[in-house]
C-alpha cells in the first residue's frame, strides 16, 4: 500500500454544524503535505480525527490500514495547536513520560535537539517562553520515529527566526519512509518544504497537487494560488 492515510466520505458535525462534509482523500507515503485552508475550513477537525481525538460522524478513515485508535497512536505523532504539557513539569520529566508512552521515542535524539536549542532538561516548563515551549513540544513530536506526523499550525505564534528553526527541525528529522502533514495558513513560509498541497474549504478538498507542478503549469506559487482560489 502506497498511501499512509485514506479517508472516504468523512463528515463531522458539531451539534448539527458541519465541519467536514464528505471529505475524500488519500495521502501518499514519504511526502511532506501542506493542509491549507482559510480559518474554519476544517483543518484542525481533520487532524484531530486522524489523531484519534475526535470520532467522525459518518464516513471512514484509515491510517496505514487501521482506524484511528490505540494501534495508530503508536505510529502517529501529533503536534496539537495548543500545548497540553503541565507547566510544573521539568523538561526531563516530559522526556521520561514520552519515552514511557511511546516505544518509538528516541531519547538521545530528543536530548540532542534540546541541547542545540539551548534548553536545559532541568528547566521547568513554566520558566520557558512561549516560543521555547513550542520548540520543546515540536522536539518531543519529531523525536519519535513515527510513520505519520500530524503538525497542526506548528509555526503559528512564533517569530520568523523560530519559524526557520522549526522548519529546519522538520526537514532534518523526517526520513523518506515517513509522512508529514502540516496544517497552516502561513503558506509563504512553508511552501518550500512541501511536496504536495491540499486546499480545503468548508470541510471539502477544493484543490490538490504538487507544489512544483503548480509553478510549472501556472507560473505561480502556492501562496498566490491560494489568494486566487480563496479570494474574499
Amino acid at each position, binding site marked *: 500500500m502506497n498511501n499512509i492515510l485514506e479517508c472516504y466520505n468523512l463528515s463531522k458535525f458539531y451539534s448539527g454544524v458541519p465541519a467536514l462534509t464528505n471529505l475524500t482523500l488519500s495521502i501518499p507515503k514519504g511526502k511532506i503535505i501542506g493542509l491549507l485552508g482559510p480559518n474554519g475550513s476544517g483543518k484542525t477537525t481533520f487532524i484531530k480525527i486522524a489523531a484519534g481525538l475526535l470520532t467522525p460522524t459518518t464516513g471512514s478513515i484509515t491510517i496505514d490500514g487501521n482506524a484511528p485508535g490505540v494501534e495508530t497512536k503508536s505510529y502517529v505523532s501529533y503536534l496539537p495547536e495548543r500545548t497540553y504539557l503541565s507547566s510544573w513539569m521539568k523538561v526531563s520529566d516530559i522526556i521520561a513520560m514520552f519515552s514511557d508512552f511511546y516505544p518509538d521515542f528516541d531519547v538521545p535524539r530528543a536530548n540532542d535537539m534540546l541541547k542545540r536549542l539551548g534548553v536545559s532538561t532541568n528547566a521547568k516548563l513554566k520558566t520557558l517562553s512561549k516560543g521555547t515551549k513550542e520548540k520543546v513540544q515540536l522536539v518531543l513530536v519529531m523525536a519519535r520515529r513515527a510513520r505519520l506526523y500530524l503538525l497542526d499550525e506548528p509555526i503559528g505564534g512564533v517569530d520568523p527566526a523560530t519559524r*526557520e528553526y522549526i522548519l*529546519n527541525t522538520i*526537514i532534518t528529522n523526517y526520513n523518506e519512509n515517513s509522512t508529514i502533514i502540516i496544517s497552516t495558513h502561513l503558506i509563504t513560509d512553508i*511552501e*518550500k518544504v*512541501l511536496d504536495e498541497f491540499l486546499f480545503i474549504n468548508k470541510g471539502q478538498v477544493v484543490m490538490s497537487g504538487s507544489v*512544483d507542478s503548480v*509553478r510549472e503549469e501556472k507560473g*505561480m506559487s502556492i501562496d498566490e494560488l491560494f489568494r486566487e482560489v480563496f479570494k474574499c
Partner: protein
Amino acid sequence: MAWKFVSDRPIYLQIAEHIKIDIITGVYPPGERLPSVRELAAIAAVNPNTMQRAMSELEQSGLVSAMRTTGRFVTEDKEILEKTKQALAHELAQEYLRTISRLGYTPEEAAELVLKINQ
C-alpha cells in the same frame, strides 16, 4: 541562511541553478564531493525530495555525477564547466537586455552603457 526563491518557477530548478552558480564560483570546486541531499536540504531549508530532484537535474547536465555509496561529485570536465558558465552568462545578459529594452534602449546602447559604467 535559507535560500530565496521566486514564485513563478519550480523550486527544484531554482535550487539546481543555485548549486550551478556555487560550482562555477568555486564554492564546490571541480572533483569535490557535494554535501548529501539531506545536508543540502537543511542548508537551503527545502524539502529533501525537491533537493533530490534538483540533483537529478544536475546529474543529467553532467555537472555532477553520482558514485554509488560515496556520494555526488562535481565534474572535472573543463568543457562541461565552461559550457555551464557560458549558459549562465547568456541568461544573465538576456535578462539585462529584456529589462533595459523596456526603457527604450537598443542592444547597442545597452552594450555601450555597460562599457561606460565599467570605466
